[in-house]
């Protein structure tokens, strides 16, 4: 099946189509294609929706997020945890018609990277492109037996015993995840070759020399250059609890299960340094299989949650909600057709029933309304008879509900009579969009990290809610909104489905910066918490405010003929030099100008004052803010007139 790039919302979650619902979220998953790990797709979140399974990477979400459509999945399979390998769910693709895809011709760089002398320690699966390597056909069918768990693994196709050396990257055992010793794999591949035919005999000679040289290396199979690991490599590792000599790469002792710490260090390094090679040849992002075989896609769950994921996945596959998208609407039972005329009454035309149906007029309008109401009645009746049927008619019910909500905004809002507010409330209470935003607690798996996952998902929900352009929450509030107001708005938008407690809300808000989302939480001097977009800094706000102040220099406050704001009946101007100083503003005026709330406006003005851009004036009528001319250029021992006269004097006037 195809792994598709998916669209992400601003909060880096997959954007869902209108009918798609989110079923489950799990973090710490990795993605495999076939037997090999996909590069850059090893640490991320898995989102299960009714239509898709999506993977969103943690480090570079925009680049490495992919999804599988559930309609392409034939069946899922569940693998429980075994030794070192995490539990996996694999998705088997449906056989599709894409057999016409030709094999990619071997690219020029078809040398197995295993033997390339790259200084970076690239370990991992060999190249996916099965292009012919310059070496003779290697043992395609050879298998090597893992010394730990005796699982028979295939030797990688491009593994060439002739040129394999200590730097060859080796795949780990599929069952237990431990890398085999190089010697082992060479032997297995040789036996595979030997089984295939004698034509490769001369090769074995050279390969045996390679073997000979290979053997001299210690049976270390971690060809890491320049890395010094303190514990003995070749010898076995002694368990601290039971003194059993374990294999060096095991994580836990085989006998007593005590954790082996140093091996764990190495395993961590192993994990981080095991990216897949980019396959040569032009493939999209190197993620898709370009061969003709469709590989099984696997999700590896490193932090649990696989059982619930599997259950929900099975449920989603059963329900096949994606079919609903193209399903025609349910045919309504037709009304008893009264239009068949009674043969007795029609001929006269006394009261031609069907004929009247076509005429215009108030009667037909009334009839239309009546039919509409009957229709609604039927729909609602059918829907509520059976809850299952409700789910299928859910689309229509939601549309009905929306239309009612829009018609009667006062019903949904509580107190406002302001028309713009009523409209805002109507928008907010649209349940369809609200449902899509909700990540409820039962969608998340169990585990020690579920609380954190809930908070981080909530945080993403919030970011999406804030940056949603159709709602324009931030825009309506002038770019900044206090946390309390936002909490009220958000809970109202959820429509009472699952309200968020203030503490959870605050914790989610504090995660924004850590997750790199485009909104940030800001703490003012007085302790007020406010939310604004990440691109608004204090400097920008100060500059905007000062630019507004500059306007005051251009026109007299209050105009010429009006009593100025001081209450003086001065004909022309206020007692101070408004050309020089402009005028003072109250927090109220600032709030009106920028669309903020008054509390936020006060805080912003005080912030500007802290930076020295503004100064305040305490009058009988309250506090006003001015541009800071106390430290400005108009103050000093050299007022303008002085300077002018001096200049004139110097020129000899």
């Amino acid at each position, binding site marked *: 099946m195809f792994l598709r790039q998916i669209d992400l919302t601003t909060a880096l979650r997959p954007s869902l189509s209108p009918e798609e619902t989110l079923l489950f979220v799990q973090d710490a998953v990795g993605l495999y294609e076939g037997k090999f790990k996909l590069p850059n797709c090893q640490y991320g979140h898995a989102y299960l929706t009714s239509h898709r399974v999506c993977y969103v990477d943690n480090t570079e979400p925009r680049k490495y997020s992919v999804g599988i459509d559930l309609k392409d999945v034939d069946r899922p399979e569940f693998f429980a945890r075994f030794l070192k390998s995490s539990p996996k769910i694999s998705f088997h693709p449906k056989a599709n018609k894409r057999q016409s895809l030709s094999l990619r011709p071997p690219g020029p760089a078809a040398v197995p990277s295993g033997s390339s002398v790259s200084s970076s320690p690239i370990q991992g699966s060999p190249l996916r492109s099965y292009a012919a390597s310059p070496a003779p056909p290697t043992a395609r069918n050879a298998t090597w037996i893992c010394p730990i768990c005796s699982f028979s693994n295939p030797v990688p196709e491009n593994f060439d015993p002739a040129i394999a050396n200590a730097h060859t990257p080796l795949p780990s055992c599929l069952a237990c995840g431990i890398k085999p010793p190089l010697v082992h794999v060479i032997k297995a591949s040789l036996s595979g070759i030997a089984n295939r035919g004698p034509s490769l005999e001369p090769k074995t000679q050279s390969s045996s020399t390679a073997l000979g040289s290979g053997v001299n290396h210690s049976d270390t199979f971690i060809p890491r250059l320049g890395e010094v690991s303190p514990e003995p490599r070749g010898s076995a590792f002694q368990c601290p609890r039971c003194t059993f000599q374990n294999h060096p790469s095991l994580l836990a002792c085989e006998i007593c299960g005590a954790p082996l710490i140093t091996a764990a260090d190495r395993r961590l390094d192993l994990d981080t340094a095991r990216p897949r090679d980019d396959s040569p040849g032009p493939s999209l992002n190197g993620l898709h299989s370009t061969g003709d075989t469709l590989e099984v896609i696997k999700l590896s769950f490193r932090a649990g949650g696989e059982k619930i994921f599997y259950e929900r996945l099975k449920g989603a596959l059963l329900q096949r909600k994606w079919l609903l998208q193209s399903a025609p609407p349910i045919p309504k039972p037709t009304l008893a057709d009264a239009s068949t005329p009674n043969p007795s009454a029609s001929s006269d035309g006394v009261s031609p029933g069907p004929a009247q149906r076509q005429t215009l007029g108030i009667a037909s309008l009334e009839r239309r309304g009546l039919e509409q109401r009957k229709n609604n009645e039927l729909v609602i009746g059918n829907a509520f008879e059976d809850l299952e049927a409700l789910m299928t008619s859910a689309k229509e019910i939601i549309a009905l509900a929306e239309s009612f909500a829009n018609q009667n905004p006062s019903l949904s809002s509580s107190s406002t009579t302001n028309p713009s507010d009523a409209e805002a409330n109507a928008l907010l209470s649209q349940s369809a969009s609200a449902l899509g935003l909700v990540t409820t607690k039962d969608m998340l798996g169990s585990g020690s990290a579920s609380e954190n996952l809930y908070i981080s998902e909530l945080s993403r929900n919030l970011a999406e809610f804030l940056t949603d352009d159709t709602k324009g929450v931030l825009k309506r509030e002038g770019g900044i909104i206090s946390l309390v107001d936002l909490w009220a708005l958000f809970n109202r938008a959820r429509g009472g489905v699952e309200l968020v407690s203030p503490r959870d809300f605050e914790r989610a808000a504090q995660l924004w910066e850590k997750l790199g989302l485009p909104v940030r939480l800001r703490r003012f001097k007085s302790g007020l918490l406010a939310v604004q977009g990440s691109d608004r800094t204090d400097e920008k706000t100060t500059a905007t405010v000062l630019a507004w102040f500059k306007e005051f220099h251009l026109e007299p406050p209050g105009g010429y003929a009006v009593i100025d704001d001081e209450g003086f009946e001065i004909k022309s101007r206020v007692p*101070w*030099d408004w050309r020089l100083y402009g005028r003072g503003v109250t927090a109220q005026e600032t709030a009106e100008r920028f669309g903020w709330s008054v509390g936020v406006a006060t805080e912003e003005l005080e912030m500007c004052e802290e930076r*020295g851009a503004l100064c305040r004036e305490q009058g009988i009528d309250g506090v006003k803010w001015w541009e800071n001319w*106390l430290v400005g250029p108009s103050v000093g021992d050299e*007022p303008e007139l002085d300077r002018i006269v001096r200049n004139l004097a110097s020129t000899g006037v």
Partner: protein
Amino acid sequence: SPAPSMATAPTTAPSSSSSTAAISAQTPTTTFTATSSSPSTFPFPPHHTFPPFFTLQPNSSTRRTQLQLWTALILAYCRHTRTFRLAPIDAQDWPLFHNATLRRRLALRDIREVLSFMASTEGGGRAEWVSDAGKKAECWVYWRRPEEWAGLLEGWVDATGQRGAVLTLYELVEGDACRGQEWAGMDVELLQKCLQVLVKKGKAGIFGEEQPGVKFF
């Protein structure tokens, strides 16, 4: 032309608002006459008509600048009106602290704040609270410090050849000979302070209780 006299007198800075009146107001203040100039002729600086000037600023750096401006203004004003002593409770109605056109005034509490700043080393030590058990009811405004006064007095005594003569303090302050001098009309207490400086240096001696007199050596 008025230009060179403007340059020499730092206190006669004309304000931009009352431009025409300022130039004519300059001439009487360039020479130090004995008559105290009235407050109405004092040329206030432009920031005196800036409303926030009358509100003590919370921002510390702005506040420091504001206090410095007030210090300079008070000193200039006192020099102009030849005020040596200032009681905040009386002074709050002066045109200095109360701008009638602007309808803004500096609050009593803030006046004391400014004077305390002036009395501190940061403010230059240009004021001193009259010691009355810390009640801060009155303070000396040193638009000239006692040391400077002492120097002036000594200079005058030398110029008029009165070394060795005995002068009463009253004579110094109110006498005809001193009419044109800067210290005319000074408080006797302040004069005593200035003379103490000289006494410490050994250049003069004060004696007499009822009619204190001074002799310059």
